[in-house]
């Protein structure tokens, strides 16, 4: 299909090393990553039409923590700029919409998270309903475990199926230089591990990761000027569901993922590779079903969120991994997925395509 000035592509990307604990601040990670992505597109900081990042104050425990990160842009003379308290993939969504305004033709979107400063066992209790859940210390692992239990009780999957998800992601991560957790694991041995939140075992949880990622987007002809093989964003949508997991229509199927997949046009062609953001192993199976993917779609060649999980970045990393499959690996149609909130409350789906 011929591209128009309304078509928007990823033309370059960069990511920091993904580490259990980085020496550097969010701003420092942003500097090398954002400027790295801009340079990879053959551009300088002054060539970018719009800059947007995603990060979270409560990861660092400081209000306005993103303000210092503007220092990484060299924003003088002043720049067109925005920030979302969301994953970097949502920052990319804002950049995508901003490019559609038509007055600029390049944008950079980033996500950054110094996750290691906080304790995931306690931090996410304050992301929950402040009246009904936070006072109970309802932690994200416990809520995920309830979802997993509901999934097992539905008979759709077994614990063995889920252990196989873990083994496959970790095996795939062996080829990902940035993976924190990788290797060959025996499913029976995984199933013999103790529960941390029955039925979740330690290996069903994501690692704690510090990191940053950035993509440069360009519109229409500009994309061809900046790279050899633009990765066109041919569909992107995101949807949310009621917050309380007990108010969802069906906790074992992700309605919001299905709606986002419809909006992004997933079914209008084959998906060769899907990068699914499933911070808890079993969620990959729920998302995969909601996306309507067949057995011929390769899932998470990067190892996914189980290999590295820098919060506020993991979703944008899925986009980058899916884009790499097109730009560097000869694929022509891939999918990236991001989730946010307890029990897959919010989901973003993005379809990427290369020219034939």
């Amino acid at each position, binding site marked *: 299909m011929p591209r128009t000035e309304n078509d928007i592509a990823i033309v370059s990307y960069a990511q920091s090393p993904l580490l259990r604990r980085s020496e550097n601040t969010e701003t420092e990670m942003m500097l090398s990553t954002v400027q790295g992505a801009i340079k990879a597109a053959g551009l300088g900081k002054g060539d970018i039409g719009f800059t947007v990042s995603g990060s979270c104050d409560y990861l660092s425990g400081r*209000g306005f923590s993103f303000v210092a990160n*503007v220092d990484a842009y060299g924003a003088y003379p*002043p720049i067109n*700029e925005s920030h979302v308290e*969301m994953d970097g993939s949502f920052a990319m969504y*804002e950049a995508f919409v901003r490019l559609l*305004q038509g007055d600029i033709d390049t944008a950079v979107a980033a996500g950054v998270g110094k996750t290691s400063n906080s304790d995931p066992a306690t931090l996410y209790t304050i992301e*929950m309903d402040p009246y009904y859940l936070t006072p109970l210390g309802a932690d994200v692992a416990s809520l995920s475990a309830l979802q997993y239990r509901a999934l097992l009780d539905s008979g759709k999957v077994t614990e063995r199926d889920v252990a196989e998800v873990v083994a496959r992601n970790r095996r795939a991560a062996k080829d990902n230089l940035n993976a924190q957790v990788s290797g060959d694991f025996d499913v029976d041995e995984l199933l013999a591990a103790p529960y941390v939140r029955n039925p979740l075992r330690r290996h069903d949880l994501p690692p704690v990761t510090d990191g940053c990622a950035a993509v440069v987007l360009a519109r229409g002809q500009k994309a061809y000027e900046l790279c050899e093989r633009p990765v066109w964003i041919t569909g992107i949508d995101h949807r*949310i*569901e009621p917050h309380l997991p007990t108010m969802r229509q069906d906790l074992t199927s992700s309605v919001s993922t299905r709606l986002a997949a419809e909006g992004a046009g997933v079914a209008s062609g084959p998906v060769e590779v899907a990068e699914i953001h499933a911070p808890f192993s079993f969620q990959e199976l729920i998302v995969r079903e909601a996306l309507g993917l067949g057995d011929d779609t390769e899932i998470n060649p990067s190892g996914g969120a189980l290999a590295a999980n820098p919060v506020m970045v993991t979703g944008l990393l899925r986009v980058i991994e899916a884009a790499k499959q097109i730009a560097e690996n000869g694929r022509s149609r891939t999918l990236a997925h991001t989730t946010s909130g307890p029990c897959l409350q919010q989901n973003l789906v993005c379809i990427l395509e290369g020219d034939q």
Partner: protein
Amino acid sequence: MSHQPVAVVGIGQTHHKKRRADVSIAGLVREAAQRALEDADMDWGDIDAVVLGKAPDLFEGVMKPEMYLADALGANGKPMFRVHTAGSVGGSTGIVGSHLVSSGRHKRVLSVAWEKQSEGNAQFALGGGKSGSIGAGGAFAPFIRAYIRRSGAPEDIGWKVAVKDRLNGAKNPYAHLKLADITIEKVKESPMMWDPLHFLESCPSSDGACAVVFTDEAGGKAAAKPPAWVLATAMKSEPSTFAGRDAVNPKAAHACSDEIYKQIGVTNPREQIDCAELYVPFSWYEPMWLEAHDIAAPGEGWKMTDSGATALDGDFPVNMSGGVLSSNPIGASGLLRFSEAALQVRGLAGEHQVPGAKLAIAQAYGANAQFYAMWAVGSSLDPLGS
């Protein structure tokens, strides 16, 4: 290109108060959203997407509260987006919402911005949870001192702004402060908080929310009440600090209004624009912004204030709603500015209406006077008749 006209067809806000003891967080945002829907003659089901904005989550102690608020705002099954650009966030929330329509992504979008400051303590949050927080007043007082010296403005300019905005606020049924009996004397005699800023020259700390419904051109033309047309939007940022940065008259502030004026063909803002809602949390920011946005020449902004030009019956009214000095639910404050500009060109501003306003601008700023969001709204798509 795909840029399509956008109309504001619904505006709602809460009654802002020091403490809205009668509502939960959900209740607060729903109060504003339901008023906006009612104004637009719509129901929750008519909305395609929701954009939520607020300042730091540390203010209420709820992380990413858009998660908890998703179904409270009727977003089940819809896109929900969360913006956070410091003090300018209310403005950004409006701009991002309008872009979802102008890009053709959605037909009807609800933007909601809020803060419930009484749940916690802003000084605590601004101080990073540590002792010795200088607060926003402490951060901006040096800029104001520099402006006063640079412009040679007399000391009573700040007091005059404080009085003027509170008198406007007294006409606004939703305003937090309604100080109809305020006087220059009272401002001058109020305690010195952040020298040279007195207590009554400073914004209050409020609970409140604001909501706006955007539609495409067809929706705007079909609206029961007059729409406001979004004619231009801009968001500009610069770093917090570096040697030689001019924080009094920041380049980003200029760049933001330059872009707005260029988009709508304004060459003489004071003549061509009917009124402005500018983010003035501390009195002196009125003359400072008049200069930064080229409504007055450098060093001349205070003369507009002094002459009464910025009063409700002046030739360039500023902060008709009473502004941030009358109500300051931080995250919502920017969208309240944007909404007031829209109310003016819709002719629906009630007692604080500028007669015949056709073109209005609104601005919000944040952090170390480094983040800017602005828009221009008109009573028609071509209010200058070009």
